[in-house]
């Protein structure tokens, strides 16, 4: 969206804010009269709240995000998670919290830079500063107790930090959070987050009742007075802001014209599984997938389903295969290292044509890699990981809403095609929070109840339709359907058969199903124009960032469009034709590729992005790629730079 520009305009209106260069000029404690108070009107704004891990900044961020969504703002929330189990406090590594980007229209990604940040100490603030998370003109509300701290080292640390920050034109406002909170609680560490929520609520004019409601909801599992105390702290924050801040930010909400829900991708995936009628989730804990099973662990039994925590990922796969074999399609959820361990089992499900859904919430790799961070580098493993020819379906939702619906799609395909469906989400979708239209559960989404009536006389266990390779499976309990499924080469009777014909036939039939599915897929639609100088192609969680970049680029008059793929196996139809309408095609991915101009790298030996490889092999179009592995979502602005560079290179702007 053109927000990028408009935001800049908006800030032009901002009154001269004090910066560290004139500390004495900081807002006095006396009231600021409304007239002097500037209101910054913008179509979107990005907020961060960061603290040492354990100080509860995330709760504050979640509540702020939810309230904003409920008021009708577009919202995208991203967690800021420390990599370490327990990083030492007051160090950059301990930065923990949330980024919340709100807008008048829908918000589809975390954006470029933060416009306003609330920090509980200067070290976590530094962490964000060093990661270039903050806009040059960002507002910074920071706890200033450290400046006056008894410990001299801390005081020096504070001053060093302030100097480091001084390079930028941040607008720094000192807030005596500790001091304030102590008026309500003895241990301010437990209260600052709600005080901070108050600050934000006032600055962004969040409806106080909704805020209160949400706080109570958040702490309903705790005792009531916990809730009340937190409300009190929040109101304290509002009051302080009212008395001391001379600016507010207005991001006009839009009227909510239809029922929305707001949740993160793992919650959506879990609810999608419920909606699909699947009844068993076998898993082994692994970040960032585990929260799917935490949530299901809470609610699945209410729906007659169970979460089985297996002894390892291989067992989880085996249990879901067994459950599917004997009843409704089951699923297993994991991340990279777990997917690796399921490799052999996926091959077994393919060979026995046992329906199975495998959800891989991708994280940084290879190996244990970056467990909490986003990456899209399991694509080729998901597609080609299994020894032997193991044709199966691979889907990738692009939004949190799609996380919900693709579980239904996956279950249906697994049933209809008697096949394995791998669903690739990632850490960005998993923890990102976004409102989307409330799904209307439909019983047609459910697996049909298992039919245990007798199998028609003489029907073979793999009675492949010679054209489509499709067949109907018999389920234990069905009289006349008895057979022994086997991972060995077999004939239609599921009898072990090693002769050339049988193996060729079985291989044909298992592969044919993908071609049939392919025939049912719709040609994907291009975002932007149907032809032009440059087409970006993406998949998975990068959709929002790519499309925002395209929109901003087009606003700059750049002739760029984008295409986003959900089906990776089989690939969606018409790609070659679509590509043909563009002078250049390149994928944008969060995975590794060699930079074309790096030492020793040639066009011949360059290792390209994973989707890029796939598209080149499939279309023979010279698809280029821009990919990075920053362990964070892509920033639309960065993609915009890539577009500019690519088109300049092409001598077009």
């Amino acid at each position, binding site marked *: 969206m053109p927000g990028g520009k408009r935001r800049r305009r908006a800030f032009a209106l901002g009154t001269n804010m004090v910066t560290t260069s004139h500390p004495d000029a900081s807002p006095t404690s006396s009231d600021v009269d409304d007239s002097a108070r500037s209101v910054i009107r913008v179509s979107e704004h990005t907020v961060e709240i960061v603290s040492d891990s354990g100080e509860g900044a995330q709760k504050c961020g979640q509540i702020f995000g939810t309230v904003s969504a409920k008021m009708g703002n577009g919202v995208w929330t991203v967690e800021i998670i420390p990599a370490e189990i327990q990083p030492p406090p007051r160090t950059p590594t301990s930065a923990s919290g949330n980024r919340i980007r709100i807008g008048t229209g829908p918000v589809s990604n975390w954006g470029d830079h933060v416009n306003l940040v609330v920090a509980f100490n200067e070290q976590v603030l530094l962490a964000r500063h060093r990661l270039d998370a903050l806009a040059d003109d960002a507002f910074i509300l920071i706890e200033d107790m450290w400046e006056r701290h008894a410990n001299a080292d801390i005081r020096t640390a504070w001053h060093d930090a302030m100097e480091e920050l001084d390079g930028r034109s941040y607008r720094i406002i000192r807030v005596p959070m500790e001091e304030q909170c102590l008026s309500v609680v003895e241990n301010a560490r437990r209260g600052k987050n709600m005080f901070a929520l108050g600050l934000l609520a006032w600055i962004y004019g969040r409806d106080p009742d909704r805020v209160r409601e949400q706080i109570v909801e958040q702490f309903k599992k705790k005792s009531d007075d916990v809730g009340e105390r937190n409300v009190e702290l929040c109101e304290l924050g509002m009051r302080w802001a009212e008395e001391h801040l001379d600016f507010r930010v207005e991001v006009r909400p839009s009227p909510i014209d239809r029922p929305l829900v707001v949740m993160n991708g793992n919650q959506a995936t879990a609810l999608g599984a419920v909606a699909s009628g699947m009844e068993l989730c076998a898993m082994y804990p692994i970040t960032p997938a585990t929260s799917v099973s935490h949530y299901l662990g809470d609610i699945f039994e209410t729906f007659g*389903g*169970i979460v089985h925590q297996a*002894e390892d990922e291989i067992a989880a*796969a085996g249990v879901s295969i067994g459950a599917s074999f004997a009843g409704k399609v089951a699923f297993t959820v994991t991340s990279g290292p777990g997917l690796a361990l399921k490799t052999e089992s996926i091959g077994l499900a393919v060979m026995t044509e046992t329906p199975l859904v495998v959800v891989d919430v991708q994280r940084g790799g290879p190996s244990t890699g970056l467990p909490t961070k986003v990456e899209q580098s399991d694509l080729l493993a998901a597609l080609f990981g299994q020894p032997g020819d193991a044709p199966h379906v691979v889907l990738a939702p692009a939004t949190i809403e799609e996380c919900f619906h693709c579980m239904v799609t996956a279950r249906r395909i697994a049933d209809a095609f008697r096949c394995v469906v791998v669903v690739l989400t990632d850490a960005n979708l998993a923890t990102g929070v976004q409102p989307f239209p409330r799904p209307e*559960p439909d019983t047609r989404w*459910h697996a049909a109840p298992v039919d245990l009536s007798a199998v028609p006389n003489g029907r073979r266990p793999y009675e492949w339709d010679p054209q489509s390779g499709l067949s109907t499976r018999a389920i234990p309990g069905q009289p006349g359907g008895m*057979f022994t499924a086997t991972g060995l080469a077999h004939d239609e009777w599921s*009898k072990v058969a090693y002769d050339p014909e049988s193996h060729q036939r079985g291989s044909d039939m298992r592969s044919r199903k993908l071609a049939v599915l392919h025939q049912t897929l719709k040609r994907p639609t291009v975002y932007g124009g149907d032809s032009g100088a440059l087409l970006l192609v993406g998949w998975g969680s990068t959709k929002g960032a790519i499309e925002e970049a395209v929109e901003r680029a087009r606003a700059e008059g750049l002739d760029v469009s984008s295409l986003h793929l959900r089906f990776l196996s089989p690939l969606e139809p018409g790609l070659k034709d679509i590509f043909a309408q563009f002078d250049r095609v390149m994928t944008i991915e969060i995975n590794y590729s060699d930079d074309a101009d790096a030492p020793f790298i040639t066009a011949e030996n360059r290792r390209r992005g994973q989707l890029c490889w796939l598209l080149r092999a499939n279309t023979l179009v010279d698809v280029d790629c821009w990919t990075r592995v920053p362990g964070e979502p892509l920033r639309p602005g960065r993609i915009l730079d890539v577009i500019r560079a690519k088109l300049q290179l092409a001598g077009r702007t």
Partner: protein
Amino acid sequence: MTDATCSLLGCGADEDRFYAMADYAEGIPRWCAGCGDHAILSAVQRLLESEQLQPEQTVFVSGIGCASRFPHYLSTYGFHGIHGRALPVATGISLRRPDLHVFAVMGDGDCCSIGAGHWIHAIRYNINMVALLLDNEIYGLTKDQTSPTTPQGYPTNTQPRGSYLPALNPLSATLGVTNASFVAQSADWVPAHLYATIREAYHHKGFSFVRILQRCPQYTASLFEPAARNPDLTEVLVHDRGITVPELDAIYRNRRVHDPTDLDQARQLAESAEKIRIGLFYRNETLPRYEELRRQAPHGADERNRLLGEELDRYAV
């Protein structure tokens, strides 16, 4: 589970049909002549017949190996999976379909080597199924490699100068796992005892682990032949609540009274002795069964959607 109940009512099933042993047979077993697996197959078929288990209500799950070919020779449902993973697959089946009769058939490599982790945990889960370890103390299908149960010093293709380590004792290992509920041992060459043992295992509610000493004339002929020829090399554990095979008393004269509720003694008896011990080592009917703890009430689609609607509303904006 709807389906479960439904099939328990046996919809479509032919309730009053009588199944003869032959009705449970399928194809020609492709094991070597004299392979103990043949006798074990017969004992199992005898059980199916005597209990009149409906073939469609019965599932045999296996891994990979000579032993794991088992399901192919039965007219029931079967799942011949991958090496070492019979128990997870069987677990998945039992979890969703407690109405089915589930048997897991494994070789010693399958169960005790590559499958060891699943084995330990299946014992813990104590899910109602019969687990048969067909222990020929060697890797048969892959042609003569050392297995965890191969006797120390016994030469194989991978350890030609004699297997390096003392054999793992599957009974002791099982008895060491918390929640173990049924542990027995029999031998392919004592069909009456074998049948009685499998029957006892079938009637036990929980994870019934039966180690069956199995002759492999191809690679380990020397290991069990003496015992198979001379009953005096075997000791039978007897108890009025144990496995009773009166017809054997005459032949197997070494008998030891053992109370299968005594875990400590079970562990001591499980330790290899000069004589092969067969019988029921341990049984405890009071232990928690995972599939029971996880049993779910049936839910109609509409009911579910209503509940799902409520859940979604918790996220309403």
